[in-house]
């Protein structure tokens, strides 16, 4: 990883800020669910915080992402504001999608969160189209397709990577390999060791990186973004990570060997990053505590606002089906 750029201290702190927001937010969602206040299918991204955080510091609001049901980390890192996010989780009319989309379809175009999808593999073809638009716009913006290791075996992966490579589109295909697809291990669905090797099938650059290592992840992502902005085409990044929880809240994850979880959790990337930030002098413990406190307060505010907002009226069923309401 020696040829890759490294984050300076300010950037490292930015990465921390995002990762901490994601982690605190995740904990709060699960807390509200456990308290019975929030009922929703929730796919925790705990353990995968560093990946989008280390990527997003290289992106602007004009860059666009497509993410999946397990996507609050991608969205928050990209800048999706907490209030419309929480209101959407709570199914309120003040939600980003007026309560119509929910957890699996969170959308916020202003911050480039264009699509959240519940269909495995579908982020890739759509991001390919966003990349085509970016190329036509000619402003050097970038599209990111997030997806999991399981999604790398579905047909849309193949079609999208081939087309994006052929058209030299500014797309980053970001496979977050958390070693599980629901109850299925990576090794039980794929014979090869590295998904990034599949890039060779399309004449694309492919790289596997430790997604939990902020330096490595930052470097690999930064280069991919720069290549995309420069018109040099797409990159397949396989970011190795681990899913700390079951597939969704309610899944105990009994099929995951206990020691596998223990090992992963012992290397929890968020406290590790905190340590690095302090070690490198990017911030003091006290400063980080202040950041975390502010994050918690902001989440708190969003949660309270969400639960006190109105639910959508039944008339909403007729709206947003088409541009104009049908008679």
């Amino acid at each position: 990883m020696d040829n890759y750029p490294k984050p300076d201290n300010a950037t490292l702190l930015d990465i921390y800020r995002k990762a901490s927001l994601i982690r605190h937010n995740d904990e709060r969602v699960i807390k509200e669910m456990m308290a019975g206040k929030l009922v929703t299918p929730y796919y925790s991204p705990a353990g995968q915080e560093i990946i989008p955080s280390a990527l997003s510091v290289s992106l602007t609001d004009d860059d666009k992402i497509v993410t999946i049901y397990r996507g609050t980390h991608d969205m928050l890192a990209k800048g999706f504001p907490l209030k419309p996010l929480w209101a959407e989780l709570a199914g309120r009319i003040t939600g980003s999608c007026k309560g119509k989309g929910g957890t699996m379809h969170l959308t916020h175009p202003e911050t480039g969160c264009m699509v959240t999808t519940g269909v495995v593999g579908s982020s890739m073809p759509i991001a390919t189209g966003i990349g085509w638009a970016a190329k036509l716009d000619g402003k050097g913006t970038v599209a990111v397709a997030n997806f999991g290791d399981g999604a790398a075996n579905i047909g849309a992966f193949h079609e999208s990577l081939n087309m994006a490579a052929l058209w030299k589109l500014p797309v980053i295909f970001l496979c977050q390999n958390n070693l599980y697809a629901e109850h299925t291990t990576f090794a039980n669905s794929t014979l090869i060791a590295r998904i990034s090797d599949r890039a060779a099938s399309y004449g694309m650059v492919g790289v596997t990186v430790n997604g939990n290592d902020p330096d490595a992840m930052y470097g690999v992502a930064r280069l991919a973004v720069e290549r995309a902005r420069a018109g040099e085409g797409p990159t397949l990044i396989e970011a190795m990570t681990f899913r700390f929880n079951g597939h969704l809240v309610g899944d105990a994850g009994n099929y995951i060997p206990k020691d596998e979880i223990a090992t992963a959790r012992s290397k929890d990337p968020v406290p590790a990053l905190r340590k690095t930030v302090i070690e490198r002098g990017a911030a003091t413990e006290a400063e980080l505590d202040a950041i975390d406190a502010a994050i918690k307060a902001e989440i708190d505010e969003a949660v309270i606002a969400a639960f006190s907002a109105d639910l959508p009226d039944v008339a909403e069923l007729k709206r947003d089906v088409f541009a104009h309401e049908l008679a």
Partner: protein
Amino acid sequence: MTETQIQPQSINLIQAVNLAMDHAMAADPKVLALGEEVGDREEGGVMGVTKGLSTKYGDDRVKSTPISEQAIIGAAIGAAICGYRPVAEIMLMNFVTVAMDMITNHAAKLRFMSGGQTHVPIVIRTMTGSGFGTGGQHSDYLEAWFAHTPGIKVVAPSNPNDAYGLMRAAIEDDDPVIFIENLPSYWTPSEVTFEAIPIGKARVARAGTDVTIITHSLMVGHSLVAAQTLADAGISVEVIDLRTIAPWDRETVLAAVRKTGRALIVHEAVREFGIGAEIASTLHEALWDELKGPVKRLGGAFCPVPYSKPLETAFAPSADDIVATIKAMVAAH
């Protein structure tokens, strides 16, 4: 094919489908199962429907797959034209959209296009249902697409007994069958007699004389609740559970509607261009002189299934909607 030695038991729909597959696999080594997570290594399916089968029948006959719906259905088709009877799972009905080529261009057509030389005895198990906030991409009711596709049969059990019986029949059937399980119906136990139920035959779920409801799956329960309420109001309602959507049981339905002269079709799928339209049109054509008023239809709202609870609840017909519609029907004609 009926396991006469098995005593009736009260079990839920998950267990009923599981036992139907289990018994079929025990009875015929050609019966196979495949799909995402169906093996015991992956806990026998996300809902546990296939639990125990891979342990009992081996990893060659019960195969967990990668997330590759086209290959899942393709693999089922290929094995089927070689004499096997695979039961393929597509985890949720919305994901059949990824495999529509395999299902409609191949499974449905190979018998006809080959002049009867090959045929595709597969069962495609899939699940749908709303009420869990899964939103627009996880709760579609697409039975009308398949009913419009010659060569495919579509069944949708409303209770554990039908689930067992229809699954046994679907596996024995020499044609492709889409087997639609309804998520909110999964956990309600009731008595199962362990007998095959013929595909294409509807069931009179409640007898009545004033109005006939034609329905299936989850809506059977809602219709029975409505029928009880209406009985208290002096309106006698017959409820027909289609069980099989394609080919649907015209004989039973026509006889029932002939008797009452009034019909209401209820389904969760979007009303427009839904299966209710075919049934209503057929009833109008066949019973023109016998109907007291036009056949009515209730279906899902014309939008994707919404997330927020009040919207999600309002999406599908409720027992109250059924009651109100039938009262209006009886008042009008």
